[in-house]
């Protein structure tokens, strides 16, 4: 048999189009809209605020097209830093990374400040801050510092809410804003006189529009975080461009709707409104949006505060790890001292980069007023996008024949050129809003240029992956039976392999050994191999054992989440069988079999065999509890394979609680030709008991192995209802094999029909 001795490393692609779109949205809907609307109304008037967001959306989608085209051609972690390295070389690339670090950190400061402003505002409404005796600005700064510190610590711990949970939070926030917008439209339909709030439409003149556009542009900067997922997104050449464009489209529509709703929310002449509605909203500046929305929907203050807590904290988390990654990449490539890219031995996160990022975030929070924080963040993103728009033209002109594109922007090169011109105008006009931004941003860039010329230029290392892209590899569809064994550690590896060997000899399988290495979000997956190598011993040991016997492939995959990583690996390699070890405990009430096993069983599209305490020993008495269904059949099949290898006896046990009628003899007779066992090997035992699981557990004491079909109930059902297989699997003191057939978990409706 041909065998492959190589151990390959792979990055697990787990993020779907929905998830990366939500990551982009999560970074955008954080502060710009909440702080920006009040100030934009004050400066540009009621019509100006809607126009601000629509026109910013138009400029942003042009830049999104540039990002999308580059991301489709170079779907690799690094974003603007990576693109400029390929397009312009190391000097410009350093500058892009340097600006990205600053821009993301300052955006983080802005989100911390947003959080603080709206929390203090709500506590003030409840009358809970007067006792402190401190002024509102001091309280806001203190809360902003505390929340920033908390998220620096969370990032040090390596925890993150990216991925599925984060995606649903962001979806909820977006939905909340869309609902506000829809309520606004409904209010206008009911009371068309509110449209008078838009008069005068542009009271301060059209030129003010450029000021508010520049100031709120930070609310459109989510595509950088999408570009960062190049190594982790499924089908990145298609999904990254789609996610970038969809997120800008969704966010622009949402902002336009919400700003419209904010203007019509205040009824002229109503209680406390002694000015024109737009003037009344504008006088509150950053809090203007909150004051307006609290008059639009019932419990508006509470709902809005909750939405802002979720929005600003998820955006703060995303920006801190995005900034940390940017500085880490500069350190890794020795553009700043290499020490900055040090990884914490305990947490596996780039802790020194994180400290510098935290320092920058806190400095901006403490020393800059909120308008200057927002303007500085916008300014830096505008300059970064300026580079990316130049880069897309250069890369297509110079390397159009070398790169594989998944997306080519329409109207090339007009879109990036128009974006460059528009962004330059916005940058210039920003000085009307904040002179400090115009001092801080150029000073930062000048400092970057000096650092590059005096430090980085001679020290920078060439990275092997300047163009190299990690592609998705799909196994050919027409090969034989493929089994995947997920190996966690050397002890677990040998235990798994003993049974794998038996099962795979029967199935003539091709075996793929898989070891998943979980990587904290703060470290790019592409750098994980350098820092996270434990696990190679397990794979090597397992490979040496199995290599002479089977065709074997071995892979170490770097992932963000082990369960999602295994499911994606099974899909990509088109495996027919997945074998996993289980320690038998679960500290989590939501996941009866643990937070890794349960999601895998729920989603994996192949047969699953889970081994608990199964070792090298031979088993002579095998108990197979059955209740009908595909999992019972697979359990019998697995038990038969083991019994054939060790001349064991099988007891097929059916325990009836009197509610359901099932004939185990029919099941065994139907399967007998497939089982290939002599008739006296299988014994059928029928029992009656009001506690099925207790009876199975007591019977298991007389056997040395239990093979059990998993529950067919979906996970959310088992959270509230005890499932017999889960109870037995957890409590069984004997070696146990839990199996689940590839048949998908049936919904209640399907089973009912």
């Amino acid at each position: 048999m041909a065998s492959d001795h190589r151990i390959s490393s792979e990055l697990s692609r787990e993020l779907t189009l929905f998830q990366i779109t939500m990551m982009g949205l999560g970074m955008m809907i954080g502060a710009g809209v909440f702080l920006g609307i009040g100030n934009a109304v004050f400066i540009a008037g009621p019509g100006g605020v809607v126009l601000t967001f629509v026109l910013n959306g138009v400029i942003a989608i042009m830049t999104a097209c540039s990002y999308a085209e580059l991301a489709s051609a170079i779907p690799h972690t690094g974003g603007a830093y990576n693109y400029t390295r390929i397009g312009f070389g190391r000097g410009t690339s350093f500058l892009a990374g340097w600006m990205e670090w600053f821009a993301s950190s300052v955006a983080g400061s802005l989100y911390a400040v947003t959080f603080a402003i709206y929390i203090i505002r709500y506590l003030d409404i409840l009358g809970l801050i007067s006792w402190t005796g401190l002024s509102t600005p001091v309280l806001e700064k203190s809360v902003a510092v505390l929340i920033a510190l908390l998220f620096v610590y969370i990032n040090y711990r390596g925890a993150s809410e990216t991925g599925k949970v984060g995606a649903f939070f962001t979806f909820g926030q977006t939905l909340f804003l869309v609902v506000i917008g829809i309520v606004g439209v409904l209010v206008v339909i009911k009371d068309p006189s509110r449209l008078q709030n838009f008069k005068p439409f542009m009271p301060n003149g059209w030129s003010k529009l450029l000021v508010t556009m520049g100031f709120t542009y930070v609310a459109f900067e989510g595509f950088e975080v999408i570009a960062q997922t190049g190594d982790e997104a499924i089908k990145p050449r298609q999904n990254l461009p789609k996610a970038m464009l969809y997120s800008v489209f969704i966010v622009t529509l949402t902002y336009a709707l919400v700003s419209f709703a904010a203007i019509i929310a205040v009824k002229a002449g109503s209680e406390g409104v002694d000015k024109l509605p737009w003037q009344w909203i504008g006088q509150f500046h950053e809090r203007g949006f909150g004051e307006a929305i609290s008059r639009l929907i019932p419990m508006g203050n509470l709902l809005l505060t909750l939405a802002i807590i979720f929005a600003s904290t998820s955006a703060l988390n995303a920006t801190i790890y995005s900034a940390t990654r940017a500085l880490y990449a500069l350190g890794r490539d020795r553009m700043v001292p290499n020490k900055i890219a040090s990884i914490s031995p305990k947490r596996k996160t780039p802790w020194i980069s994180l400290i510098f990022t935290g320092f920058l975030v806190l400095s901006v929070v403490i020393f800059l007023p909120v308008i200057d924080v927002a303007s500085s963040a916008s300014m830096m993103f505008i300059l970064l996008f300026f580079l990316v728009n130049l880069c897309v033209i250069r890369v297509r002109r110079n390397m159009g024949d070398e790169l594989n594109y998944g997306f080519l922007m329409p109207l090339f090169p007009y879109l990036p050129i128009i974006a460059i011109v528009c962004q330059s105008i916005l940058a210039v006009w920003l000085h009307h809003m904040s002179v400090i931004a115009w001092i801080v941003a150029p000073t930062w860039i000048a400092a970057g240029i000096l650092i590059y010329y005096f430090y980085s230029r001679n020290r920078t290392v060439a990275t092997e992956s300047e163009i190299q892209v990690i592609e998705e590899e799909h196994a050919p569809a027409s090969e034989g039976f493929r089994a995947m064994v997920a190996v966690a550690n050397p002890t677990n590896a040998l235990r798994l392999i003993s049974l794998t060997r038996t099962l795979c000899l029967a199935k003539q399988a091709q075996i793929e050994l898989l070891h998943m290495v979980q990587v904290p979000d703060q470290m790019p997956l592409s750098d994980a191999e350098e820092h996270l190598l434990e696990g190679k011993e397990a794979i090597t040991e397992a490979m040496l054992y199995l290599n002479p016997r089977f065709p074997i492939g071995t892979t170490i995959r770097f992932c963000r989440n082990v369960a999602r990583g295994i499911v994606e690996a099974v899909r990509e390699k088109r495996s027919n069988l997945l074998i996993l070890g289980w320690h038998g405990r679960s500290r989590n009430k939501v996941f009866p079999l643990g937070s890794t096993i349960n999601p895998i069983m729920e989603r994996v599209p192949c047969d699953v065999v889970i081994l608990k305490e199964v070792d090298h020993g031979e088993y002579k008495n095998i108990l197979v509890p059955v209740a009908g269904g595909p999992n019972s059949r697979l359990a019998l099949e697995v038990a038969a394979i083991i019994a054939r290898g060790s001349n064991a006896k099988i007891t097929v046990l059916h325990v009836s609680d009197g509610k359901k009628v099932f004939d185990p003899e029919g099941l065994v007779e139907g399967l007998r030709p497939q089982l290939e066992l002599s008739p006296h090997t299988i014994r059928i035992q029928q029992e009656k008991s009001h506690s099925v699981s207790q009876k199975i557990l007591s019977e298991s004491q007389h056997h040395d192995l239990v093979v059990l079909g998993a529950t067919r109930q979906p996970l959310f059902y088992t959270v509230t209802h005890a499932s017999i297989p889960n109870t037995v699997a957890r409590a069984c003191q004997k070696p146990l094999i839990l199996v689940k057939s590839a048949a998908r978990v049936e919904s209640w409706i399907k089973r009912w029909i």
Partner: protein
Amino acid sequence: MDNDIFWGVLIIFFGLSFLFYITLRSRKIIKQIELKRSRTARELLEDLKNGV
């Protein structure tokens, strides 16, 4: 004043239409390219121009 509203609404309408157009057009391009795997920018542009 009414003039401002007219131009404002017109800009909003064309701005949103442009967003819609770019998003849909880009989606179509991504689909077209997906059918022609491993092609360079120049080859793809030729094909897209010729409507292949």
